[in-house]
């Protein structure tokens, strides 16, 4: 029996350490099905949350303050823009009807499409704040374009016989149906914006199956699949590198001096348990790297499923006797994909090796 040990080394600074997954990962561009389902199910409210999260995650990712409120705010303009555009389309259509009642064709819908197109062009090349400005500008532009037409229509309407006036400006469902593909396009543009912005901050993707240096070229990793990219530096002095990956994954590399593997791994278990409502299921294995003389600990934890998804934590720590290098991978994944994604995470963790 030994003494119930109080670790004199102080252990890992748990309070100062963040678990990437605990902040919930970015609304990844690759889970479109979930995005659209949630947007539809919540009548678009999820879109506001999702866009806000993009801004928040981008802020966390870059370490630069961002106007997170601008994202959902810009999306609030979408219904307004839709109303304006629908009005313009209707009015343009009415104008055509006035001029040639026999040809009730909706060429005026092009005006609405032009709006979405302009917005897309602006978004692709701009930061996330731009949609707000673009939307406002587009509305103003459409309004300016529509005002003369409105004026002409009003004047023409006054000249029509009364019975024909009643037919103008009526409810035309197809006008609104026209907005559906436009809204979809708009969503796709927003998603693409997110993706392009992501790339802007993470740089080029790391080639799958190839060895890449991390942690000041002292260690290497080999991404098992595509979609992994290097993330921006962190202010945390213990964080040496960060990767972001597919499947809403984040990998963070830490380096600790004068610590013990036992205290580190225990602090990880405690930290995960602290973040998760249910005590996660964990399994730890330690092996000895006879080439480098290192002890490698691999800790795999998975939370209980919540709303069809669960969080996986895969941690590998390499103890060379003087310092401990760690990769911490968090993945939020649909339950049915757990095993597949877990293997990917473990493969990345296992590829984490000393560079020599």
């Amino acid at each position, binding site marked *: *029996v030994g003494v*119930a*040990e109080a670790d004199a080394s102080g252990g890992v600074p748990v309070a100062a350490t963040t678990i990437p997954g605990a902040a919930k990962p970015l609304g990844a561009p690759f889970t479109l099905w979930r995005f659209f389902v949630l947007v539809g199910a919540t009548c678009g409210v999820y879109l506001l949350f999702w866009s806000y999260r993009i801004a928040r995650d981008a802020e966390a990712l870059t370490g630069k303050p961002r106007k997170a409120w601008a994202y959902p705010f810009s999306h609030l303009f979408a219904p307004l823009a839709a109303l304006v555009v629908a009005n313009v389309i209707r009015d343009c259509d009415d104008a055509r009807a006035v001029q040639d009642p026999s040809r009730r064709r909706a060429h005026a819908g092009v005006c609405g499409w032009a709006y979405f197109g302009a917005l897309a062009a602006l978004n692709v090349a701009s930061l996330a704040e731009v949609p707000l400005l673009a939307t406002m500008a587009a509305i103003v532009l459409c309004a300016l374009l529509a005002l003369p037409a409105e004026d002409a229509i009003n004047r023409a309407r006054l000249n029509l016989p009364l019975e024909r006036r009643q037919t103008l400006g009526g409810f035309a469902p197809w006008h609104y149906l026209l907005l559906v593909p436009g809204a979809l396009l708009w969503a796709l543009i927003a998603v693409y914006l997110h993706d392009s912005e992501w790339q802007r901050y993470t740089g080029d993707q790391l080639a799958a199956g190839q060895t890449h240096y991390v942690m000041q070229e002292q260690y290497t990793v080999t991404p098992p699949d595509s979609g992994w990219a290097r993330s921006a530096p962190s202010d945390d002095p213990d964080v040496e590198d960060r990767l972001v990956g597919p499947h809403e994954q984040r990998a963070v590399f830490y380096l600790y001096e004068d610590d013990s593997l*036992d205290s580190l791994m*225990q602090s990880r278990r405690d930290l995960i348990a602290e973040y998760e409502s249910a005590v996660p*299921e964990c399994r*730890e294995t330690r092996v000895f790297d006879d080439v480098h*003389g290192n002890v490698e*600990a691999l800790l795999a934890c998975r939370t209980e499923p919540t709303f069809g998804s669960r969080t996986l934590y895969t941690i590998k720590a390499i103890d060379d006797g003087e310092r401990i290098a760690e990769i911490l991978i968090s993945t939020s994944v649909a339950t049915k994909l757990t095993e597949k994604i877990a293997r990917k995470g473990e493969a990345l963790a296992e590829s984490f090796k000393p560079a020599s």
Partner: protein
Amino acid sequence: MMRTSAALLLLVLALPAGAGGLPQLRWNADTAPAALVELARASAARVDFSRGYSQPRLSTTIAAGADAVETRTTIVSAFGDEESAYAYGNGHITLDVESTELTVNAAFVLHPDGTVQTVARDTLQSVDTETEVFGDTVTLVLPYAGLQPGSVAVLDFTRREKLAGRIYPWGRIFYLQSSFPMDELHVALSWTASRPLAWATDAERLKCVPAELSVVCDGGGYPAIARDEDANFFDLLPHFSVAERSTWADLHAITSRIVDRAQSGSARVKAAFAGLSRERGGTEGREGNQPREELIARVHGFVGKQIRYLGLEQGKHGYVPHSTDATLERRFGDCKDMSTLVIELLKNGAIAARPVLVASDFERPEKLLIPNVAYFDHMVACLDGETALCLDATDPYSTWSSLPSHLQGRVNLGLASDKVVAFPREPFLWTLEVATANAFAADGSLLERQTRKYSGSWAGFMRGQLKARTTDDRTRFLIDGYERAIGDQDGSPEFEVDNLDTFDRDLVVRSEKRYPELVREDAALDYTERLGWLMDLLDEAQSDNREYPFQFSGLSYAEDSTFDPGNHWSLSPDTVPVVRFRSRFGEVDRTSEIEGGRLVVHTAVRLPRASIEPRDLEAFARFVQAVRDNTLIQVRGALTRPR
């Protein structure tokens, strides 16, 4: 009699046999011969005193005649500082007084101011420095007077060893490197055609020019050997071996002959055997018709325990064992006496055994350059037809069925009658199995019941440690070991020792201890402990060697640790990491499971015996440290209501 200590290296010459007391000597050293004074001056002029102590010159001239061998040795010593004078300020001459006439030709100190101060004869001391089985040697100590930094001492002496009446052919070994620098070496041999000498050396820095009846070797320039503690220096140092020409078979035949002659066949021996036959011990034993193994065990135990080891060989008994009758009557003897008695007692039981000489200092047979009895310092009895099943009655606490640890790997003559070979080695010298049952109580206390099982030659070592102590000292010894490995909080455990007197079984130590208030009874269980006995054992796997290989003896450790939380806690699964270490130095496995609400942790560590080269020592130390760092067991559990 047993292993020679590394301190023997300070004596550059390994010397032969003799009898106790102040040796007879011819003293011609009241004045310093002019030639030697000039040699001292020349040495002082060119020696580098900054090295502390050194030997600028060592010269040995051996002339073998028809009836005697005359050896003249000249040692020039330089003292560079006070420390070297303190450590090496005496001249030493070791000799076998029974067969040797000693003449001291010169013993003086040349001081830095040019004055010469001779050693006063009345300051000589004689010390019994018995280190070898075949001989009765004493060491003559000659204190150099007036030593100061810059002094040079010269010791010149001649030994004349009679050849007549020798049991074994004359032989001598000269080590050519020591713990201090040696600048010039000179060895000259000459012999007659009627008594030819054989010689050989593995010293690369000694160039020999042989002639028909002589050889002259010159060389030197040996630096001080590195002071690695865990090194078998005799296997590493270059040496010069010279002996009367013979074969290994000749030496073995001589040994067999003298042992045969010492077997008396007396009534006393027959009575002793009859007594052993009548003993009723093992369950299979039947009076007068015991199993072979049981008889061997009894003979080993009888000689080991009833015959007191006393390694004071005198006269011819430096080489020849006393008769078994005398040994039985005296109830003491040396390794030759005890082995001879073992052989005769076994023979009475129709079990054939033979004497085997042991060169305890050597583990590499190739280091025994020529047939030379001077290599050997021990004798054991080995069973005929059995590979290395040898009984060393001087180690009474070991089991006869495994080779004692001090013999494993050592070079011997007798396992094979016509060549020297090394005894086999067990892959694991340190073999320990531990079973620990920990039971938590609702009041936060923990009851630990532990069983340690020592196996193989380590069991013999531990048994020796325990048997050599009084009851109180034995308890103190066990407590000290426990506290060193586990801790000293909350008092000492209670101990029981099984098989302390049953040498052919594992030695079992049981302990029980309660730790009050070890955990909080009103909180979740969070308890950690390390495998203390493994940590303690891993100390044996540490070496500070820098230059020479570390001879690691091998470690096999297994522990089953059980943690019973009782009704007060419900244990969390998977709190103990799975450990699976695979290294060129060994393996470690640890698994755990929850069985019936208890946590069971299985640990197995296997680090086989190995000679670790200096370039691998860092990696080995790292692996050992990794094993040590991964001995933590964590037990966690949530409070639960008592059932």
